C-alpha cells in the first residue's frame, strides 16, 4: 500500500517525512490483538498491508520465515523489523523509530 507522504498530525504534505510503503500486518479477523493493532494503524492513518492468514494460508510460510519459525498473530513487519504479538506501546515506539509517527504525540 502507498504511504501517505503527510504529517500525521497536520495531515499536510510534508516532504521531510520519508517515503514508506512497508508496514505489513499478519493476522486473522477473529484475533482480538490483530483487531486492536489494525484499528490503531487506522486511527493513526498509517497505511499497511493486511494479510489475513485464514484467507491466505500460503502466507504462513513467509510469516514463519521472518519470525524464525513462528506463525503467531498478529505479527507486524515494519521496514523489515518484526514485532510478534506486539503491545500497542511496542508498536508505537517502532513506528516512531521508523518515522511513521512523531515522538511527541
Amino acid at each position: 500500500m502507498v504511504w501517505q507522504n503527510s504529517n500525521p498530525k497536520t495531515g499536510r504534505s510534508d516532504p521531510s517525512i520519508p517515503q514508506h510503503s512497508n508496514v505489513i500486518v499478519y493476522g486473522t479477523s477473529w484475533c482480538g490483538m490483530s483487531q486492536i493493532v489494525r484499528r490503531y494503524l487506522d486511527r493513526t492513518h498509517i497505511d499497511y498491508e493486511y494479510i489475513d492468514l485464514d484467507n491466505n494460508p500460503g502466507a504462513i510460510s513467509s510469516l514463519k520465515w521472518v519470525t524464525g519459525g513462528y506463525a503467531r498473530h498478529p505479527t507486524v513487519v515494519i521496514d523489515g523489523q518484526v514485532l510478534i504479538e506486539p503491545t500497542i506501546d511496542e508498536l508505537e515506539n517502532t513506528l516512531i523509530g521508523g518515522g511513521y509517527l512523531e515522538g511527541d504525540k
Partner: protein
Amino acid sequence: MKEYPKEKKTGRLQELQERFQRLEKDITDSETKTALSLLNGMVQELWKQIKKTDSKSGDDHSLRSIANMYHHAPRMEGKALNLPLDEGTQAPDFELPDAEGNMIRLSDYKGSTVLLVFYPLDWSPGCSQQLDLYQHEMKEFEKRGIKVLGISVDSIYSHGAWSAVRGIRFPLLSDFNPKGEVAKKYNVFRDIDGFSERALYIIDDNGIIRYGYISLLIHHVPDIYILLNKIDEIRKPVETY
C-alpha cells in the same frame, strides 16, 4: 511506559538461543561462522540493554505482567452451542450488580442504544483481548451513542480486579447468582461449561433486539469492523416514502 512482557520474550529468546547453539557444531569454521557469531553477540548486547530499560519499571510493570498473564493461560476452545434471540423481539430486562455493587437494570438505559457483551470468563485469553479491544474503541462507541455493558458469570470482586488491571472503564455486570440467569434469558448460556457463549446483542433505544451474534468458535472475537458497520446500519434513519 515502554513494555516488554519479560516471561514471553525470555522464553522465546532462550528457545532461539538454544536452537542457535545446537547449530554451532554443524557449521564449519569460516568467515560466515564468524559473522553469525558476531550477529549473535550483537543480539545479546541489545537484549541486555532492553533488560536494563525493563528493570526501571516498578509497580506498573507488575500490573502489566498480571494483565498479560492470559498469554500463558490455558486455551479456551469449543463450538457455539446456542443461537441468539431473534432480532425484532423485546430484549429481556434484567438487574445485575456491577463491580462496585451498584444494581444495573437494562431498563435504566431506555432511550439509549446498548451493546451487550456476553463473554465467558474474566482473565481468559479471548475475553482479555475482546474487552481490551472495546476499551480501545470506546470513543467510537461514544461517538455513535452506544452504551457498552459486559456480562459474565464472574463475581463482582473478580470484575473489580480484572477491570482495574486492564483499564476497562465500562460496566462489567456479574451474572453470578443464580449463575448465568441472564445469559439463559438471552439463550447464550453453555450448560456444559457453566459460562456464556461469546455473544453480542445490540438493543435499541426502545429495548428491541436489533442484532444478535454468537461466535461460532468460542475463542473467536467478533470482527470489530463488522460490528461498527452493523451499529452504523442500525443507527441510520429509516427512509419513509
